[in-house]
């Protein structure tokens, strides 16, 4: 029988790395529905959970899957599901419930070509804005995007840590390219992996208010069966968790749900900067596109063009302070992405008045090449 943490070197597909990352993070509840190109995650978990003691359920649909994850998280389990566009769309309503009830869960979206059924077996990055705004209402959410199997493994663990810390659904926004490509994945020894657990109440049940936040705006979380007799609802509620459907209660609650993320931007946002010290042109990329983007920057440097790379590891909340800072130095932001302009809009917004922005759009289907990005950098440098 295999252990939970498979310390060592492996050659894993991105999807397998995600499943193993979840196991390492302590995920012991998985609910999902088959969908290309994400199914390998569920398949792998279904093989692994009986070995290590975890609950795997293939539900009747994605609506049930995400609802069950919320329930499981309220029972104290770290919970995950994996899906792709069509399934992610179906999950949106209960992502909102997760935001409102403040439930730590992790959703893996292995992006494929869209809209609709689109390109089931081919890659895209079209769900970036949906990830931010897919459920109704004004809310903040956390999303991370990996560019390789190793990063998929690492970021899955980080997704769980952020979900537990901030009591919010966290989305691993990956893609077919990462899911279906294999590479070296190093799993560190168990005691070298940092794991975060949700804050528990420190007061006796009679004093416990399930939605009374601490200084950091995050309320401690009791779980079902722990004797706290708490109630929770998707309705606007007060600190007791009781429905309070007034404008005042709504103002207070929705502000806090947003601010608990916004106020911790620097803790949550992670970027990788390369060759930026003297850069005139910054290539802003994320996920799978980061690899060819980095290569293209290298090609430009060889040509004497002062190009640099900003790789967004955290997609949401957006790294606005990072773009804002570099906007004072660079002349151009070049944004290659596998959609018709999504993160580009965020970059443009933050760069406004300081630097220009150029979108290199690809609708998906295949990954953009280093040469294609390099050509655009060169054009911009000649302007």
């Amino acid at each position, binding site marked *: 029988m295999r252990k939970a943490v498979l310390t060592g070197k492996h050659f894993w597909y991105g999807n397998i790395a995600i499943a193993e990352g979840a196991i390492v993070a302590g995920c012991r509840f998985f609910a999902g529905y088959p969908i290309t190109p994400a199914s390998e995650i569920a398949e792998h978990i279904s093989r692994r959970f009986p070995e290590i003691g975890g609950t795997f359920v293939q539900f009747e649909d994605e609506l049930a899957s995400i609802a069950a994850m919320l329930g499981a998280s309220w029972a104290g389990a770290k919970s995950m599901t994996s899906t792709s566009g069509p399934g992610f769309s179906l999950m949106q309503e209960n992502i909102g419930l997760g935001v409102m009830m403040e439930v730590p869960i992790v959703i893996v979206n292995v992006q494929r070509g869209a809209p609709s059924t689109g390109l089931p077996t081919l890659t895209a990055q079209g769900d970036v804005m949906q990830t931010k705004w897919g459920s109704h209402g004004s809310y903040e959410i956390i999303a991370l995007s990996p560019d390789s199997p190793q990063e998929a493994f690492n970021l899955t663990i980080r997704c769980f840590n952020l979900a537990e810390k901030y009591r919010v659904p966290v989305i691993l926004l990956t893609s077919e390219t990462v899911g279906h*490509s294999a590479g070296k994945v190093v799993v560190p020894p168990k005691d070298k992996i940092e794991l975060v657990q949700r804050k528990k109440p420190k007061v006796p049940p009679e004093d416990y208010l399930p939605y009374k936040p601490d200084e950091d705006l995050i309320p401690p979380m009791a779980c079902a069966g722990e004797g706290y007799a708490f109630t929770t609802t998707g309705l606007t509620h007060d600190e007791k968790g009781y429905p309070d459907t007034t404008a005042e209660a709504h103002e207070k609650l929705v502000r806090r749900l947003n601010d608990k993320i916004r106020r911790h931007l620097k803790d949550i946002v992670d970027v990788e900067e390369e060759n930026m010290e003297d850069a005139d042109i910054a290539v802003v990329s994320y996920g799978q596109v980061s690899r060819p983007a980095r290569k293209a920057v290298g090609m430009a440097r060889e040509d004497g063009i002062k190009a640099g790379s900003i790789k967004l590891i955290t997609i949401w909340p957006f790294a606005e302070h990072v773009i804002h800072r570099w906007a004072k130095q660079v002349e151009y932001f070049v944004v290659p992405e596998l959609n018709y302009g999504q993160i580009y809009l965020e970059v443009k917004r933050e760069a406004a008045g300081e630097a220009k922005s150029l979108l290199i759009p690809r609708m998906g289907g295949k990954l953009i090449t280093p040469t294609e990005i390099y050509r655009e950098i060169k054009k911009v440098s000649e302007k």
Partner: protein
Amino acid sequence: MFAGFGGQGVVTAGYITGQAAAIYDDKESTLTRVYGPEARGSACYSGVVVDEKEIDYPYLLSPEIMVVMSQEAYEKFLPQLLDGGMLVIDSSIVKPDEQAEKYKLFTVPATQIAEEMGARVVANVVILGFVGKIWDGVSIKGLQESIKVTVPKRHLDLNLRAFERGTELAEKALKKES
């Protein structure tokens, strides 16, 4: 690149190669795959990139070696091969035409050999043995270790023998060449 039709094990061959390079030869490697929606029968390939340092682009742009195990794959994917690159065909299935003249052509009757060994499914492993010998991207030792952790235990012996046959054929081919 390992190209063929679904069900021939071209993805497995790529996986074994990528794993050999990344884990047993301690290099960097990526494996990607391209195929249609059908689980079986359509032209597909797996691509392996091997490098000493971190790989920027995980997909194959112009492979230096291409294994072709079906006629459809031959016609569909051959133009991607780097000019002067190594072309390895399963000669029991694929008939090369004048296009092949641009490349360094090797013919291996892999499926026929595998059938003689009693299992058509190890044709990909015969080819792997051949590739391991003629291409320096991955080591024979690494490939053998990779096979050991990938194929089911009850079929290990057969697979290792098939691999051996591949390396023998490659030695002969290389001798003939020099």
